[in-house]
């Protein structure tokens, strides 16, 4: 609980021989029963941790979930920047990509096309994803400039959106 991957980070899961990559765009800690809202607690406690100690059932009644947007998959070491033919299976394990996978994935910037056009996507997400991928790069600035240029092409008719993303990714 409370350990969702960062907003804009890259997660992966396997579908047979395929590894699907997805960008985390939503994370929340909610009640396991839909419609049942958590009650405010801890009036007499000194720290939030004390609440969980006093009410151990809370960790069973609440859970943290995150949503991610599929932006590509790889198969036999080839990366495809479009949607995989099948969805991920239930109970597949999901991992956060390690640095080498992030490097590999960000060699092509074509995933930005899916990101800026997806209904679940947002300018905040695009910016966060670029910042997240840039962090693992040695040439951080160059990567962000290339990302920005790719966005300039994708958002050719939307200067306002482009401006707002660029302001969020400047190093």
């Amino acid at each position: 609980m409370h350990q969702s991957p960062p907003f804009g980070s890259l997660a992966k899961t396997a579908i047979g021989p395929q590894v699907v990559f997805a960008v985390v765009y939503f994370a929340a800690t909610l009640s396991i029963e839909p419609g049942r809202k958590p009650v405010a607690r801890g009036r007499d406690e000194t720290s939030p941790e004390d609440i969980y100690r006093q009410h151990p059932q809370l960790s069973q009644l609440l859970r943290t979930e995150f949503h991610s947007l599929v932006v590509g998959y790889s198969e036999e070491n080839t990366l495809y920047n479009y949607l995989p033919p099948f969805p991920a299976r239930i109970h597949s394990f999901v991992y956060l990509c390690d640095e080498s996978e992030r490097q590999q994935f960000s060699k092509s910037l074509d995933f930005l096309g899916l990101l800026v056009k997806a209904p679940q996507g947002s300018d905040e997400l695009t910016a966060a994803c670029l910042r997240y991928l840039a962090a693992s790069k040695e040439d951080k600035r160059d990567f962000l400039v290339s990302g920005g240029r790719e966005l300039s092409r994708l958002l050719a008719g939307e200067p306002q959106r482009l401006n707002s993303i660029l302001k969020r990714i400047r190093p």
Partner: protein
Amino acid sequence: MTQGYSQEGKRLGIVVAGSLSQGIEIKLDSQVSIEDMAVGRYVSIEGKKKRFYGLITDVRLGAIDPRFSINPPDMSDPFIAEVVIGTSAFGTIKVLPRIIWDITSSAMQRTKTVPQPFQIVSEATQRDIDLIFGSEDEKRLVIGNPLDMEAKLCLDLELFATLSNGVFGKSGTGKTFFTHHLLNGLIQKSKAVSLVFDMHSEYGWSWRPQGSHQEFKALKQLFPSKVAVFALDEENYRRRGLSPDFIVRIGYDQIEPADLEILRETLNLNDLQVDAIYRIRQRLDKKWLKEFLSQGDQGSIGTLAGQWRENESNLEAVYRRLTKLRNLPFVVQEATEDSVAQILHKLEAGISVVLEFGRYRDFTSYILVANLLTRRIYDKYRETTEGAKGDSERPRPLIITLEEAHKFLSPELARQTIFGTIAREMRKYNVTLLVVDQRPSGIDPEVLSQLGTRVAFRLDDVADIDAVLSGSEDKSELKTVLSRLETRQQTLVFGHSVPMAVVVEVEPYGSPDYYRKFGFRDATEIGKQVTKDIEELF
């Protein structure tokens, strides 16, 4: 010669639009700064089967969406500026492709098509320039380097000498330097002999440009055995410690009515008086001028008028106006030696002639002498050419350099003066003109259109720019290029002797290396050579 497709020059961008008539539009790559682009520069466009060469004729800014100009990005941030330039906002250049290098047949052609979309555009390299203009050899002269390039650019003197040509530009732009350079090249490479009407005494021994302290060596110093100086003003020449090869004197009997007709403005002659002069010539024959003036001196114009049934006051007026010729010291009753014959003699021997006017730089002297001499030289050339049975008998090509050419070639005079005839008849008789002028708009358009190669330095007046470019196929594009030339040392060369128009940063004149290239050795060098020769001999 170039065969491969390899891109050697710096990549500039890609072809995005265009047409054969309007030119090709090229979007610059983001790493190419638009501020480094300049009209007049050469680029090459790599096609699938052909390589296109052209001149940048316009530089423009573009934005991917018009809203960018209303709501511009924050360009003070270097990151945003780096992203946006070249993508959302970009530079475009317009290129006029004029020459195609066909890779499959290894042949140069005129452009008849355009490259495919999105082909790569690069800066032209020395190899490209050599391919288009050729490299220096016995008939090609290096005239400078193309704009913003290190490459050497050559002019084909053989082609140059076949037609009349023009060098234009306002004063102080370097047209005299360039004319010198051309003449040096023509004399060194012996493509033609030159006759220079040197109104400002610049082409003989040396000259000092306005506002400069440096003295530059002229033709006689560089080519002592290939150039003869004829002086109209002996005193002026001797005052400089020099002695001319010949002193030009013009006898009255050498002056023809046609020579005076073109002086009608300076001598203030009207139509009636000009007609009367022609009739006097008919009646008095060869010595008409001497005879008529002496009759006038004796006060017998009235008697003549009676005899010839001429209007007396008209004849009196003619007499008064013709006496002005006596103010010209080089016009004498009878010339002891025939200057024209002397000049022809030199020209036939392959020696170029510079005619220095010295102090007599007024237009009356200049027009009278230039027209009179040229008419007779031209007649002689025509006779020889018409009598020639084969090419070997044809006289050596003669290039007459004419400064202040608009004085001879104005629309009113071009039909009367011999220069108009030479310009129009072109190379028929192996005589061509090298017109040097700062007011091309004053020259008859028909004459301008006959000029083979035009060298245009900076011109400010729109009428002059229009005149220089008249009849050129890319007039509107070249106009942009021409009006953006620097005030000095930059020129646009286009026409017959260059495969395509080119902006040239002209070869600097006057360095010791420059003189040495044309065979000049100074006294110390000659001294060393003599010592060495003596040592070797003994």
